[in-house]
């Protein structure tokens, strides 16, 4: 959708007698249908041997079906978040960034919080920091693929998907649909890229400086300076690259 918007292919569609809600829901439904059919096909292919061939104890059709349902819910969530990113971003590159931010930002924020708290010497025993890191993982739907979770996670994923879809419909309705990567709420894509790279660079540099250079002896003033300098440098570098690209 972001690619269509950037290439101005969305314009003709928007000039047709359909509401923006209808456009976005139809596009979403097409993706969900593909996802559902793919999962159902997988279930059939896996289910036939389970039904008719000798299998290890405990591997029954309901167990396989539950696994597929959970995977389907995880992929649905990932898709819904990516779809939301597509409605917000003004071009493909911004959409990818925004999608990555939606999928991984909560975990990255948890990681950043751990890094900052370590820098400031909070919780020297790292008992609570480890807990933040541990639970932060569960904020990213992709992590769920690697683990075994119950029905709660499926319900949570479905709720997240619905919330993402509702947000996408709203964003698509209010979005200005202008070229050059305008976001509806975040300024433009270059600023978002700068912020994303700046944040990542700040965390990485800060962590590296303390773990490798200063030997893990934190000083909060130095830590703050490292964060600011790294962030500003990455932000400016991104803007410079973006301007060069624009010219």
């Amino acid at each position, binding site marked *: 959708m972001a690619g269509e918007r950037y290439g101005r292919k969305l314009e003709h569609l928007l000039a047709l*007698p359909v509401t923006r809600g209808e456009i976005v829901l139809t596009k979403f439904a097409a993706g969900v249908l593909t996802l559902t059919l793919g999962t159902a096909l997988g279930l059939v292919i896996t289910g036939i041997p389970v039904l008719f061939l000798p299998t290890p104890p405990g591997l029954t059709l309901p167990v396989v079906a539950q696994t597929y349902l959970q995977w389907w819910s995880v992929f649905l969530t990932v898709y819904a978040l990516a779809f939301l990113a597509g409605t917000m971003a003004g071009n493909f590159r911004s959409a990818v960034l925004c999608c990555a931010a939606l999928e991984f930002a909560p975990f990255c924020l948890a990681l950043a919080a751990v890094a900052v708290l370590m820098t400031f010497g909070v919780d020297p025993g790292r008992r609570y920091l480890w807990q933040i890191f541990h639970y932060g993982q569960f904020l990213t739907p992709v992590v769920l693929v690697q683990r075994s979770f119950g029905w709660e996670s499926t319900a949570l994923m479905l709720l997240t998907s619905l919330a993402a879809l509702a947000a996408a419909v709203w964003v698509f309705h209010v979005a200005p649909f202008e070229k050059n990567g305008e976001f509806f709420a975040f300024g433009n894509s270059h600023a978002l890229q700068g912020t994303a790279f700046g944040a990542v660079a700040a965390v990485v540099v800060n962590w590296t400086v303390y773990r490798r250079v200063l030997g893990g002896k934190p000083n909060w003033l130095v830590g703050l300076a490292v964060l600011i300098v790294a962030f500003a440098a990455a932000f400016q570098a991104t803007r410079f690259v973006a301007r060069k690209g624009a010219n």
Partner: protein
Amino acid sequence: MAMAIEARGLQKRFGQCWVLRGLDLKVPRGSIYGLVGRNGAGKTTLLRILLGIIWPDDGEVFVDGVSIGKSDAEWKGSIGYVPDVPDVYYNLRVSDFFALGKRFYSKWDEETMTRLTGLLGLPLKRRLRELARGQRTLAALVFAVSHHPSYLFLDEPTAGLDPLVRREVLKLVLEEAAERGTTVIYSTHILADLERACDRIGLLAGGRIAVEKALDDIKAGARRIQVVWEGEPPEDPRTAIPAGEPLSCLWF
């Protein structure tokens, strides 16, 4: 005179760049309104605002006296639109493209579509991506007029087309306007097209409609004077113009 489309105080900026600065526009019903201006003057932006594709930062658009606001769909059933870049639905066959129109528009006229397709020689079985740019424009035009819209928006539809295709496009637009009283807003750089098709011209400059006149009035106000000198021309050629001639533009 009843206004089909009216814009009041439209303002629009992209980042720090103001494109429209309090633009007012009045398009009479049944007229073919030519929108001219330099590259980047804001013609496409204005059309996109009038179509409700993007929204102005300030100002309002009225269609038949009713503000369109941010409403969707309803009034779009009565408009036809040909974008300057007709790169839509690349993978569709021409026939599927028109089938799409049939689904969207309740007033879709299959007979008109068939007649125009045959007249313009559009290959129904071929995909849009396989067509030349001119053919894609023609397909977009057939799509736009086959439901007999009350308002037709054309964004530089003849730019880059060969003279024959240009003539076909203009002919189609003129026919539609003459037979059904369609109100047309026609954005173009090509002055010959304006002269041939439009009855009213709006010049977009500085984010506003700088000049808006009937084509006949513009023609009546324009004079060409040919001056021949014996020997070297004077340093300031303006001295050769008879006194009392009102001048707004002078070219040498």
